């Protein structure tokens, strides 16, 4: 049963092949069996989820209408408000805050479609990281190799889907926090256009850059979840098949977006580029400065958000987060202004590329999953910080708010590598359609590890 995806489970429950209670009970059996090794979950909601499942089963038995995600178990990064739980955002600083009074609206939408929330997921503290080596709650381990990181900051969200504990999860992405763990854990992650999905009830990091989005193991699954999350306006799923057959002009980003990439990553990128007949070596001028501006803006806004706690209790932060937030407190307002000004310049440069291409292609991360605790990696012949470098290809894209499907290249038995399918603003459908085409050609696929941890 755990091999089933979102649409499989919804169909099986709607047709009474399984009861929702059976699916949710199996989910908790998986959590108990596997999560001690992976450490994706920080809270489980067994009583509530089983109660929701029984109610759904009663609705089905009574012939009442059910939603498109009926009985699908899902979990959320623990910066989403869950009614009755304190929203930790990966910290201990918030552990004594009162419980959330209501679910975040995106959770409400999934529940309204019949999905069943089973728990909250580990993350880098306050979403400031790319590794999910959380100082307080421990590292989330990569289901493909438990000695390696899951990526971050939505590491629990990616790992829980990759380990087939849940078929669907939610995360957030400020600089790459959906796309990086999706790549390292070998699942699909969708970072929609900046502003597309409601961030209400999601603990902020950088207001100027924060995005939210889903993880799943197939393009069809992530599309149906995305359609529910958008509230049903202009759903993508009904036209996805047809769109995936349409000609697509694809530009493979070169320059900054391939510098330092490991051979396994470049080989995977090449397979995708070939399948999409992409024009190679397309240059997005200013990507390095865009990444630098994203770094500055993140530190500046993050420091201001945490000003009171940094002054009162800096020692309670994860050291890796604390040091960067404290440094951000020294940035003057004109640094943020400069970053925002450069944002428009880079946006215009990339917009010009979309006159010639429907979609841009880039690797997601330069390497395969690093080992937990690994401080540095080699990039362009230099030893650089793992924690700060995993987002080297993702930061310029989220900086200008473009929608991206992070897709896992089909590498059964190997550590995952992923690509970014980058669409013009508000054209998530194009990224998803390209993903579907690649999936049907066997070029991208989630390959969850066969053996349990």
């Amino acid at each position, binding site marked *: 049963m755990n091999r089933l995806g979102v649409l499989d489970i919804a169909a099986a429950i709607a047709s009474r092949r399984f009861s929702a209670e059976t699916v949710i009970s199996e989910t908790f059996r998986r959590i108990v069996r596997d999560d001690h090794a992976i450490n994706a979950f920080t809270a489980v909601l067994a009583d509530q989820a089983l109660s929701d499942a029984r109610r759904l089963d009663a609705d089905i038995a009574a012939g009442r209408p059910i939603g498109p995600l009926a009985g699908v178990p899902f979990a959320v990064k623990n910066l989403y408000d869950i009614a009755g739980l304190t929203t930790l955002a990966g910290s201990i600083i918030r552990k004594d805050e009162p419980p959330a009074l209501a679910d975040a609206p995106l959770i409400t939408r999934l529940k309204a479609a019949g999905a069943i929330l089973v728990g909250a997921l580990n993350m880098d503290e306050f979403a400031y990281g790319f590794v999910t080596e959380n100082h307080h709650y421990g590292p989330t381990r990569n289901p493909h190799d438990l000695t390696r990181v899951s990526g971050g900051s939505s590491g629990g969200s990616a790992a829980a889907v990759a380990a087939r504990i849940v078929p669907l999860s939610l995360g957030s992405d400020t600089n790459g926090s959906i796309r990086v763990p999706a790549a390292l854990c070998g699942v699909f992650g969708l970072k929609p256009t900046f502003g597309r999905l409601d961030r209400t009830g999601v603990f902020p990091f950088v207001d100027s850059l924060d995005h939210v989005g889903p993880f799943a193991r197939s393009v069809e699954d992530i599309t149906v979840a995305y359609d529910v999350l958008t509230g049903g306006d202009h759903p993508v799923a009904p036209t996805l098949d047809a769109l995936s057959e349409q000609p697509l002009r694809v530009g493979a980003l070169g320059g900054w977006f391939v510098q330092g990439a490991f051979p396994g990553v470049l080989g995977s990128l090449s397979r995708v580029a070939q399948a999409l007949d992409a024009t190679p070596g397309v240059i997005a001028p200013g990507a390095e400065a865009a990444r630098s501006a994203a770094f500055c803006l993140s530190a500046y806004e993050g420091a201001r958000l945490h000003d009171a706690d940094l002054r009162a209790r800096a020692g309670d932060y994860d050291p890796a987060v604390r040091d960067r937030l404290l440094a951000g407190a*020294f940035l003057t307002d004109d640094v943020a202004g400069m970053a925002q000004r*450069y944002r428009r310049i880079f946006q215009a440069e990339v917009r010009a590329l979309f006159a010639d291409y429907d979609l841009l292609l880039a690797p997601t991360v330069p390497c395969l999953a690093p080992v937990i605790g690994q401080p540095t990696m080699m990039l362009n012949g230099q030893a650089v910080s793992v924690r700060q470098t995993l987002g080297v290809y993702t930061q310029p894209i989220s900086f200008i708010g473009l929608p991206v499907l992070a897709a896992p290249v089909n590498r059964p038995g190997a550590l995952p590598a992923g690509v970014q399918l980058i669409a013009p603003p508000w054209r998530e459908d194009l990224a998803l359609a390209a993903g579907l085409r690649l999936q049907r050609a066997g070029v991208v696929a989630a390959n969850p590890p066969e053996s349990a941890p």
Partner: protein
Amino acid sequence: MAEQRTSFLDLQADDVAALATAQDAPIAVPADYLGTVVANLQGLWRHAAVVKAALALASDAPAPTGPFEP
């Protein structure tokens, strides 16, 4: 958060380390983690310098007047 007298953008690379312990520092950094905060501050200074140099090549670009629209 108190305003600094000198813009971060006007600092020279060698000045950055002293910033964290300056009398008018915007926030006090405990000695236990002064070294790692300074290392991060130096990283941010390098990033800011990259952006500053890129902007210098586009000096006619207008300052944004409203919220960012993707």
